[in-house]
């Protein structure tokens, strides 16, 4: 069975912060088309702060907990509580592990999904980050149950996340600020669904790169 050592927390956070930073203007532009245009700025601020606070050699759980706490306590907006809780639950699901394997990452994803669903009232099809997250986790779960390798599960998750993100272009927003636009939100990617894709694809890429036989 293949797995990723948990001592690469800082490196993972660096990669996540890089991706968010590189896409900050793009995410704000997506948000600006249907919302208030602050998504990228605030995410970038939160990920950057969390990275500064994470020590070299931090475990995945410590790094993800720092990220979650920073987003939850300092960033605000809708994405602060959603992604803050998302990363805190991910951290809790890999606490005290020596490595993250296929089953552990599945538990991390499922815990993250559960808290996001509890906090908001969105469903798949409402043009939110759930349109990325739900199919991504379903694809990962299906691959896991079919006995696929960790790398294959991650690849399936990434593809489904991308399709899910793209699906929001043709959806009409039902939740959050964009929902006030109704039909006029159609034709724009959802910023939350897009940032969720960036985060999941970064996990997939990072874990695939650092897989080791255990």
């Amino acid at each position, binding site marked *: 069975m293949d797995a990723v050592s948990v001592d690469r927390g800082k490196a993972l956070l660096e990669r996540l912060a890089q991706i968010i930073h590189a896409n900050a203007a793009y995410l704000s532009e997506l948000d600006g088309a249907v919302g208030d245009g602050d998504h990228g700025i605030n995410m970038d601020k939160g990920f950057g702060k969390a990275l500064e606070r994470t020590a070299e050699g931090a475990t995945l759980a410590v790094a993800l907990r720092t990220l979650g706490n920073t987003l*939850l306590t300092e960033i605000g907006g809708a994405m602060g509580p959603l992604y803050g809780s998302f990363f805190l639950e991910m951290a809790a699901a890999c606490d005290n592990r020596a490595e993250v394997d296929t089953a552990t990452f599945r538990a991390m994803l499922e815990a993250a999904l559960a808290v996001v669903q509890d906090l908001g009232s969105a469903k798949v099809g409402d043009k939110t980050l759930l349109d990325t997250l739900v199919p991504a986790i379903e694809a990962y779960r299906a691959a896991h149950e079919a006995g696929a390798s960790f790398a294959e599960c991650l690849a399936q998750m990434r593809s489904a996340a991308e399709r899910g993100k793209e699906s929001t272009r043709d959806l009409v927003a039902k939740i959050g600020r964009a929902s006030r636009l109704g039909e006029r939100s159609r034709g724009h990617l959802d910023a939350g669904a897009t940032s969720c894709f960036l985060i999941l694809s970064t996990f997939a890429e990072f874990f695939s790169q650092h897989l080791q036989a255990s």
Partner: protein
Amino acid sequence: MQRIINDPNRVVDDMLKGFVQAHADLVAPTDNPRVLRYVKAPVAGKVGIVTGGGSGHKPAFIGYIGRNMCDAVAVGEIFTSPAAQAFYDAFKAANGGAGVACLYGNYAGDNMNVKLARRMAEADGITVKTVVANDDVPSAPKEEREKRRGVAGEVLMWKVGGAKAALGGTLDEVIAAAQKAIDNTRSIGVGLTPCTIPAVGKPNFTIEAGKMEMGIGHHGEPGIQVMDLRPADEIAQMMLDIILPDLPFNSGDEVVVLISGLGATPVMELYILYNKVAQILAAQGIRIYRPYVGNYFTSLEMMGATVTVMKLDDELKPLIDLEAECMGLRQFGRG
């Protein structure tokens, strides 16, 4: 971008530093740099009044901290809900042992952060109840009122809730009064220009020269119609034609009218708008009991205005009339 700022990423922090110095008679900082409190808060035995929201709406939200108004306010980034931690710290700063009424506007971020903060406060034994303002008529149809945004009507909700708490109301009484205040209130905005979040550096929506957007939101959320800019009297008529039938307001009603600029419209023009609003209401037999005209709830440097009408009854009148002192509103007893 023509703005008087230092670092676009630090406008909120820089603004707060100036605000607490300029209004040291009314507000005090707390351990959380994103929470300000009334200098006398918490008042033992009084229900604490808390609100919070994104920055860029001056005087809202911190401008309504003061005597017979809000006890503590959670401050967010520009147009961004305060973090859950800020709402929680505001609850603690306002709690005088009689519970906390959190009176805020209906936005997804605020709803989630208040929900998390309430859970944190409950674990500490602080009772928090909420009223969620949804006075913005164009933001959703009447049958989906729970989806409507909160806009300038929030000022009247804080006025009523703050007064009820100051007069010794219990938490349930304060909540009931604030809920009635917002249930009796309808608002609409019109935008003439977009606004720019300093850290973004350019407007994220456009309103063409010579056009106006009827029903625009406090963060530039699209309205119901973009049309040619009309004279003030026609704008007033259009706005009232949308909000008056929604309650509906009827002949014989007594109302508060609040006209707020959105930031860049000269106050002079708000009076031009008010003149026609008053005339239309008079013609319909609706009596203006108390008007407020000025910049009460803005959207950075957007040009435009909001019109808010609140139907009064015997409970709401004395609460609206109670003296109040805060940066956004100074009101003396009805003589």
